[in-house]
């Protein structure tokens, strides 16, 4: 990580004009795919991510089945054209790791014990990448699972905080990620305060870490509102119906 490149100007603003604790613009839409049981689309800065959920359905092949609960399988994938260099199709080590930790984060919130022997399959496709795709993917996947009507103790919202030019900053962009000093993706369940995904690489002191955590958690709470808004829009008619019904009863 080089420090020749200036990431913070004299006004304390970042390369894209954001303040240190400011998120990139985020748009979340639920129910965007025709065939999946649940789906969501997230635009997060220049990141574009789709998530689809199929299930719960019988896990196949059978040796994968857990008699006590559903298994959660995640496939995170970068589209061939999603980055500066063409990505060769098929799994790679980075995608394998992200799939694994995303599945672990989701398994924590899904009420898997309601669905013994079942599989809940989550597909995350990164259509365009600009740093932060694992957080965008986990955020989208949570909405897709809710859209599928699968019971959860709460949705996971995810966001990274990091360090640029020696300052803790929220939600690093690609240039900040490449030339900053640390990045720390966090997956958080606002309802319960649980941390379900946490990674860090770079260089942080304890003080910096606490600041980064506080910033990321606060951002996750904002993102959680966007997730709920997306679901509300998706089920607007239904909610309206329910409200009417509620009034009458």
């Amino acid at each position, binding site marked *: 990580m080089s420090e020749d490149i200036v990431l913070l100007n004299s006004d304390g603003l970042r390369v894209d004009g954001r303040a240190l604790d400011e998120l990139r613009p985020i748009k979340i839409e639920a129910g965007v*795919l*025709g*065939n*999946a049981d649940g789906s969501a689309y997230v635009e997060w800065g*220049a990141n*574009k991510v*789709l998530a*689809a959920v*199929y299930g719960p359905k019988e896990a196949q092949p059978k040796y994968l089945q857990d008699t006590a609960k559903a298994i959660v399988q995640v*496939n995170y*994938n970068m*589209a*061939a*054209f*999603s*980055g*500066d*260099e*063409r990505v060769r*199709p098929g799994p790679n080590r980075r995608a394998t790791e992200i799939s694994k930790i995303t599945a672990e984060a989701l398994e924590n919130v899904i009420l898997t014990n309601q669905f013994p022997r079942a599989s809940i*399959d989550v*597909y995350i*496709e990164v*259509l*365009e*990448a*600009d740093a932060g795709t694992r957080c965008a993917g986990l955020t989208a996947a949570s909405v897709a699972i809710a859209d599928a009507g699968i019971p959860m103790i709460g949705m996971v919202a995810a966001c990274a905080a990091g360090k640029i030019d020696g300052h803790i900053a929220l939600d690093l962009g690609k240039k900040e990620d490449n030339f900053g000093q640390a990045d720390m993706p966090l997956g958080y369940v606002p309802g319960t305060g649980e941390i379900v995904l946490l990674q860090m690489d770079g260089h942080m002191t304890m003080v910096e870490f606490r600041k980064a955590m506080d910033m990321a958690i606060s951002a996750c709470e904002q993102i959680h509102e966007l997730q709920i808004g997306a679901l509300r829009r998706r089920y607007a008619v239904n909610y309206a119906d329910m409200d009417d019904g509620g009034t009458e009863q």
Partner: protein
Amino acid sequence: MKRTIIPEIKKELIYKLAQCGCREDDRSLEDFRSISFETDVISTAEGSARLTLGKTDVLVGVKLQPGEPYPDKQDQGVLMTGCELKPMAHPGFESGAPSDESVEIARVVDRGIRESGMLDMQALCIEPGKKIWMVFLDIHVINYDGNLFDAATMASLLALHTTAVPASRFGLGEDFPLPVNLWPVTITFVKLRDILMADPTVNEELSADARFTVSVDDNGHFRAMQKGLKGSLTYDDVVRALDMAQKMSLELRTRIQTGE
């Protein structure tokens, strides 16, 4: 695709409707579903288009990078067409290595583009025998409701026609538009017993005996054909399909050229 079975009664219904010239979604046998699209949707790609044909939803991205020419085509660029049918798009699609279906789609789309000569391969030569542009066209199916051949071809044409060659990024002069002309659209029919219908939905594909795809260029000439599925066609079927395809290609081409 995993063996996906459609109930016999559903098949029968689709056929009965077809006998009356009707379809599940109130189209005539020769109608295409509604088409909508957007280009330049992926800024990391040199060209891109997302197109929906009814509920079929396809994203095509084009990336270019310098590479070495093939030994037998020293002065020509290279086109590489890939297609991924991911489980996201349909519960019948499976993870893992590309399926036979995805290989067939990629190769048929590729042939339509390649054989029409719409892409000037010689203009993609940087230094004969040494360096040429490699064009990676990747078809990403987002939702599948039948007729991927035509949807993928249209999205590919749109993506290619809006692609800029990223010469400056590789220190090879100024960017320039990808040297393309022509709009060789494909028209796909399926045959149910004795009836041909265009632009099949997934239910119609699952009910079909045979499939026939034909690529028609701006002059109404044929550039590629592909018969698929386990049933057969008669000589008359083929000629009728080609006739229809010639006519329908005009409208389809206009729709994607003008966006209307």
